[in-house]
């Protein structure tokens, strides 16, 4: 029994090291002055890159751009997808399965191949290098789960609850806003956070469509990795992770509770 517990303990420690090791290592780099192999810790510590990074105007601008695009993309995605999610969950939409599978298939085509063709399309529509073009390309990466996850949440609400509210005299809209929406809120919330992160994280399409006018943080990260010392990339990476971690703490409970998993079962 003790041997088994030790085995489980080692397994947990290894998994924790595998997941968190790289992130902690990056954190150390963000505060390192001089650090040469094979020293286990930096030879000297420094905060200088935390100051210097704000002296590069293009880096500061990319932070602002990322925080502009992500909320806009999230809102547009919600407006486009949430009514559809509700309809797919509650109404006998003709060709429902086909619509869901079409959404799924759009996810299976490799993004790079898509972006090359979209580039041609965007040139024709004069969307290259525009704000709207970047919103559109980031939006495409959010459509599938912004539809699927809330649809599953709407579908999991027992109709009896809505019917009961109707029976005591509530109107359709009132039922929707006081019964349906609050119950589906966790799934919608998870989908919106994932959309925010997908936009915040998107680099390849934004690079192709937005450069040089709109260089967001992850796009900037590619050049940081190759052109700057590891301290600069580490500081930037830590900054880029802050909103993600904050959002994770907000939705952790719902994600672990299955709000995300339900969305992928295509009911």
């Amino acid at each position: 029994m003790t041997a088994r517990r030790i085995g489980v303990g080692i397994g947990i420690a290894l998994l924790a090291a595998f997941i968190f090791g790289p992130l902690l290592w990056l954190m150390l780099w963000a505060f390192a002055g001089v650090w040469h192999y094979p020293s286990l810790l930096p030879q000297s510590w420094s905060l200088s890159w935390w100051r210097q990074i704000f002296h590069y105007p293009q880096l500061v601008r990319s932070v602002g751009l990322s925080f502009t695009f992500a909320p806009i993309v999230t809102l547009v995605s919600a407006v486009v997808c949430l009514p559809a999610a509700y309809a797919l969950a509650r109404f006998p939409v003709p060709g429902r399965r086909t619509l869901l599978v079409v959404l799924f298939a759009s996810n299976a085509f490799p993004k790079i191949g898509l972006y090359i063709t979209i580039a041609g399309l965007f040139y024709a529509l004069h969307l290259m290098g525009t704000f709207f073009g970047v919103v559109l390309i980031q939006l495409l990466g959010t459509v599938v789960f912004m539809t699927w996850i809330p649809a599953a949440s709407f579908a999991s609400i027992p109709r009896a609850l809505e019917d009961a509210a109707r029976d005591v005299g509530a109107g359709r809209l009132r039922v929707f806003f006081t019964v349906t929406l609050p119950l589906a809120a966790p799934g919608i919330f998870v989908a919106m956070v994932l959309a925010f992160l997908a936009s915040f994280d998107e680099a390849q399409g934004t690079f192709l469509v937005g450069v040089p006018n709109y260089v967001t943080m992850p796009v900037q990260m590619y050049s940081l990795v190759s052109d700057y010392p590891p301290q600069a990339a580490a500081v930037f990476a830590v900054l880029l992770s802050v909103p993600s971690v904050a959002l994770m703490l907000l939705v952790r409970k719902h994600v672990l509770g299955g709000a995300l998993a339900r969305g992928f079962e295509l009911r």
Partner: protein
Amino acid sequence: MKTAIQRGWYFLAASPPVVLVAVFIGFPIAVTVTYTLGHLGGANSAISSIALHQVSSHGRLATFGAYSSVLTSHSFLEDLVATVWVTAASVGLVLVLAWLVALYGRLADTRIARLLTSFAVVPLFIPVVIGSYAILQFWSYGGLVKTLAHAVGLPGFPALGYTLGGVVLAEVWVSLPFAVLMIGSGLRSIPDSAFDAARDAGASVARATWTVLLPMNLVPTIIATSFTGISILGSFTVPYLVGPTSPNLLGPDAAQTFQSFNEPQQAEVIAMVIFALAIVVAVPYLWATYRSNNNAPGAA
């Protein structure tokens, strides 16, 4: 008549995301297919006006010239082999790890077990660029793994940065959360009684898992397999940052063919190959969801 109008309204309500996907994903994919088959005019004229080494169908229905030039190239074949084995190895590792974490969470149901599940979900919220860069630093020369190996007297320990092995590790890191959530959610929906009955009849934990939990949790496992496989097949950031120059996965290969060699047609042929592989991986998923829907009570 009224129901026909009503059905029309339902369809309209459900259509915005589908229209968006049809116009900006479906249409480009169709255009891509014609481009790889040698149609350089129409919607392809903007891209073909700047491209090198294009193969034209010259008004005929199709030519497979671009396909044959890509599919016979040595570097492509190396990348194809790398893509297939890296995907297979990563998906296999992800499934084993995700099952272990989810199973422990389901059977132990202690604070530590729940904590472990939370750990495994963390990479979902770290931008892929950051995760890849962190993993590269961690496993490279000068990274913690090499440093520890050096400290315990193993200077010959391999540095996995810029190798396909490193790509596997990074893909596992990135893909683990989704698989844990999928498989864990499936396991939680299996009633205790099913597992307990097998245990009462004398089956070991391993045997009860294999004969009861695995078959009952097959659909979520297949969903996790297909989605993980598809995302690794088409991945770009992870192999681009963590992988070697060559051979690498087809994702960075396609990007390089387009951006460095200025050969969009050949890049699109590579994208079509990835797509074909992804469809193969998607078949079990579609089969599983159709099957589970037809078995579900009240399914249409």
